[in-house]
């Protein structure tokens, strides 16, 4: 097996062009497990976590968007200054693995693995992120919604590299919640990200671990938008159960060795209700939660 460490983006892309079947190694938190377990074999590895272009991020004040390099780690996303641009991404990052894992694991790796349980992914889906791909032939941008085609399947072509993601910096509540079987270092049984755009008057709800890919819950979002007063930051309490029910209805969970479809759907209902309640605190103290 050959392992080549790239130091620039051009170098990484040349290596991938020369060996399109090469496996990209960033933090290695998914890849090394798959290799060790014998779930994947590879003859060539291109290591990208020392590529400066991938290790950087940039906030564009004009469009108020944040471009995050693919090799930015979860530990970096958890803390200032990045945490300020997307509180939900920071929250999701905090739930990933242990400190050691968060120091190694990258956002690009999370996107590339495209697990339905990937903690960062509901946030990217809720924020309508764009995934940046590059190869020696050029670059292309893919909406996150179109990026994953199934569990651990994506539109990335041989020779292509994920270079980063761009998310809008929204004004409004963002939250990420998940249900797992213990407090820390746990894979999500079900997860949800809620993001409110107070300026654009939208509510976005994305669901993880309840379908082959990360799902949005458009009917639930519509219910919330119609019931919300974005200026006052309040919502008609009667809409909250309908919102949660619509979220649960949008889930497409399965029974597997981690949980049952019924419990996952129930968890989505609870997580969605709690997130919306946190986003629009009840107008009067003591009202229903």
């Amino acid at each position, binding site marked *: 097996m050959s392992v080549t460490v790239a130091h620039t983006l051009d170098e990484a892309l040349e290596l991938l062009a020369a060996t399109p079947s090469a496996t990209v190694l960033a933090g290695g938190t998914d890849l090394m497990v798959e290799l060790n377990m014998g779930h994947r074999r590879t003859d060539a590895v291109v290591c990208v976590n020392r590529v400066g272009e991938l290790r950087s991020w940039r906030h564009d004040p004009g469009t108020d968007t944040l471009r995050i390099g693919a090799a930015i780690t979860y530990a970096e996303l958890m803390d200032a200054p990045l945490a300020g641009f997307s509180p939900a991404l920071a929250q999701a990052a905090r739930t990933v693995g242990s400190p050691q894992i968060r120091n190694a694991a990258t956002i690009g790796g999370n996107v590339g693995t495209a697990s339905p349980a990937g903690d960062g992914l509901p946030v990217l889906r809720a924020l309508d992120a764009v995934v940046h791909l590059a190869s020696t032939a050029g670059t292309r941008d893919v909406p996150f919604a179109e990026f994953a085609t199934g569990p651990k399947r994506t539109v990335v072509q041989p020779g292509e590299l994920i270079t980063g993601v761009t998310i809008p910096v929204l004004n409004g509540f963002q939250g990420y919640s998940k*249900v797992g*079987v*213990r*407090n*820390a*270092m*746990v*894979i999500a*049984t079900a997860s949800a990200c809620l993001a409110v755009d107070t300026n654009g008057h939208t509510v976005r709800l994305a669901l993880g671990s309840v379908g082959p890919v990360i799902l949005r819950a458009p009917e639930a979002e519509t219910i919330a938008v119609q019931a919300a007063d974005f200026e006052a930051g309040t919502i008609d309490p009667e809409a909250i159960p309908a919102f949660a029910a619509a979220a649960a209805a949008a889930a497409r969970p399965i029974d597997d*060795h*981690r*949980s*049952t479809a019924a*419990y996952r759907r*129930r*968890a989505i209902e*609870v997580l969605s209700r*709690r997130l919306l309640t946190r986003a629009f605190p009840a107008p009067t103290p003591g009202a229903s939660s």
Partner: protein
Amino acid sequence: MTVTEPAPTSRFVRADGPDKVTGSGRYAADLTLTGVLQAAFRYADVTHGRITRLDVEPARSMPGVLAVLTAADVPDVRYGPFVADRTLFARDVVRFEGEIVAAVAATSAEIARRAAAAIVVEYEPLPIVNDVEAALAPDAPLVHADWASYGAADPIVRDRNDASYASITKGDADAAMADADIVLSSRYVADASHAAPIEPRAVLAQWEGDKVTIWSSTQVPFDARAGVCETLGLPANRVRIIVPHLGGGFGGKCGFHVEAHVAALARAARRPVRLVFTRREEFVVPDRRREGMVVELTTGLRGDGTIVARTGRVIIDNGAYTADSGFFSQLAAMHVAGPYRIPHLHVEAHLVYTNHQPSGSVRAPTAPQACWALESHTDELAAAAGLDPVEFRRRNVVDTGSEGPSGQTYDEIGLRRCVDAATAAAGYGRDLPDDEAIGVAVGWWPSFTAASGAFVKIDGDGSAQIVTGAQECGTGAVMTLRQLAADELGMSPDDFQLVYQDTSVAPYDMGATGSQTLFNNGRAVVHAAGQVAEQLKRLAADHLEAAPDDIVLADGQASVAGTPSRTVSIAELAGIAAGGELLIGHGSGAPPSAPALVGSSCVGDVGMAAFVAPQFSCHAVHVKVDRDTGVVRVLGVSAAHDSGTIINQIGARGQVEGGVMMGIGQALTEGTRYDDAGRQRNPAMLEYKLQTCADAPPIHIDFVEIPTPDAGPRGAKGLAEAPNVPTAAAIANAVAQVVGRPVRQLPMTAERVWNTLTGEDGVS
């Protein structure tokens, strides 16, 4: 013997601590030898099938392969400590997914694995026994068609898939039940779980002539040696087992496992051979899974809440073979009777073959599940009697002078004081939010009495060694032996080096099992050190011209009592001894015998109905339940233990903390699930969730120190297993208070709690 207890917390430093903390310690998988080969096993491809074809030629002919073994290449020995139902390699029939069909030694682990996979095995499928209750049906398929022909230990009562039946009967339970004012029945089902030590096991074997040395990550080197001797037909003095640092055990590394396979490979290949398990193998292969269990209990009360009668039935999943599990039925029967005064009792337990991984002793075998069932039932009884659960226990538990359920009368014991201490520390009875509660459970556990030996010697320079058969599995119990020897000889623990975990150097000890190290080997070390102390006193008496009885050993000096100026250092005496009668002590001591039982009768009696130096405990656990998701958080644990005199406070507290954390895991997250063929669905750390430091709640510990006669040194009882007994039960009782009724399955996963909350648990 009167010893003024020093402040142990200030003086105890583990001798193995620096090695482990700095990473310089060597574990079995770290070892290597010139020319060492790597081993791999071929496991059964089906969970129950008759081998119709076994062709190892594709492996033998692979470059780099130096040995391939099957049942045809080793003596035809059927072994097992209670029922001889096991062979090193499958002979004709495979009975669980981790059964070893063949073994390969090759120049690399990769080649060994490829070669093992290349072996051709074909099977005729046999009906799979996957349900422990259905396995007891008269027409159930047999896991062992030839069960009746197997040898078995005398007390073991067997019948087809029932590998060990036990009952405990006292009085007339049926008649007393008929007269009871309140009768309540409950049923509980616990999943299997695992010891999950951090170090997967590793074995390295090397022959020199007709002698073999085996380095193994075992908790019980002498047991492992016995297994090698029995299966390969060797005398004990030609098999040497050495245990390097052991990376945890929790019972999972008790018993004889794969030492003989590796030794046989090394003999066939004429090269040293090493085997290192993967995490998956550690989950699937050893006969040391914590047993799944079904418990049905019926208890009759008087109107005032006094227990008058109990009947119970326990069905234990033995898995495919009977490891040390033969005693589980009687021990489980004791645990569903529990530490209560019960005049009329009939409990029975069946240890039932299935096509699952075999069960074996994992920390306090049978107890956490049985205690969980019993103590959940007890809270239901308290509610039926209109009593507070703690008050109900105060009225019914055994205490000093009580007669227990099996007819044993207890000397001074501290169970009620444990209840008082744990509930006080937890603030039991205070107002809590609706989604929080404090649950309480009591538990018990025997101390195990066994033969055990040690040498103590002081060399000419005054430095000392303890040479012991005892095995350190991380509890610190062996480390504590230095303290006992030091106190006996008036020396410092730092004066002693430990030589341990080598069967050819030290006398026998049962190993890191049954919480017995300090209890039995401590006695041996005190005995051996006492002999050396007598020698020193005689030498000092000669030197100081005094009577031996007047010599006092303290602070590294021998002095004449009442005349501190007449003194000689122990080092100087050791120098004198080096030229004459050497300072060598050898100890064993007489193990305490089992207490008498009066008025009870036991079927399948393997000696577990009488508890030597019984340990008692009470845990009070504060939990919060998310009613929407069923997620349970443990906010605090108060644990009170009567384990007799505590000799090493730091080590003892560590045992309680670890036992509690293991109990929280069993309560909430740890459970093995099986597919339709009886294969484990979650044999990996990703899917089998142990508790982590981030999950650990504050743990308050009280030791109710009642020095016990007829116990270990200074009145110590065992301790390592007892803290694992009542935690899950206490959590269950707290959860039941919030939810309104008990969750009848273990672990109480969020989903199961939620199903109970919504009434969808299928239990009326």
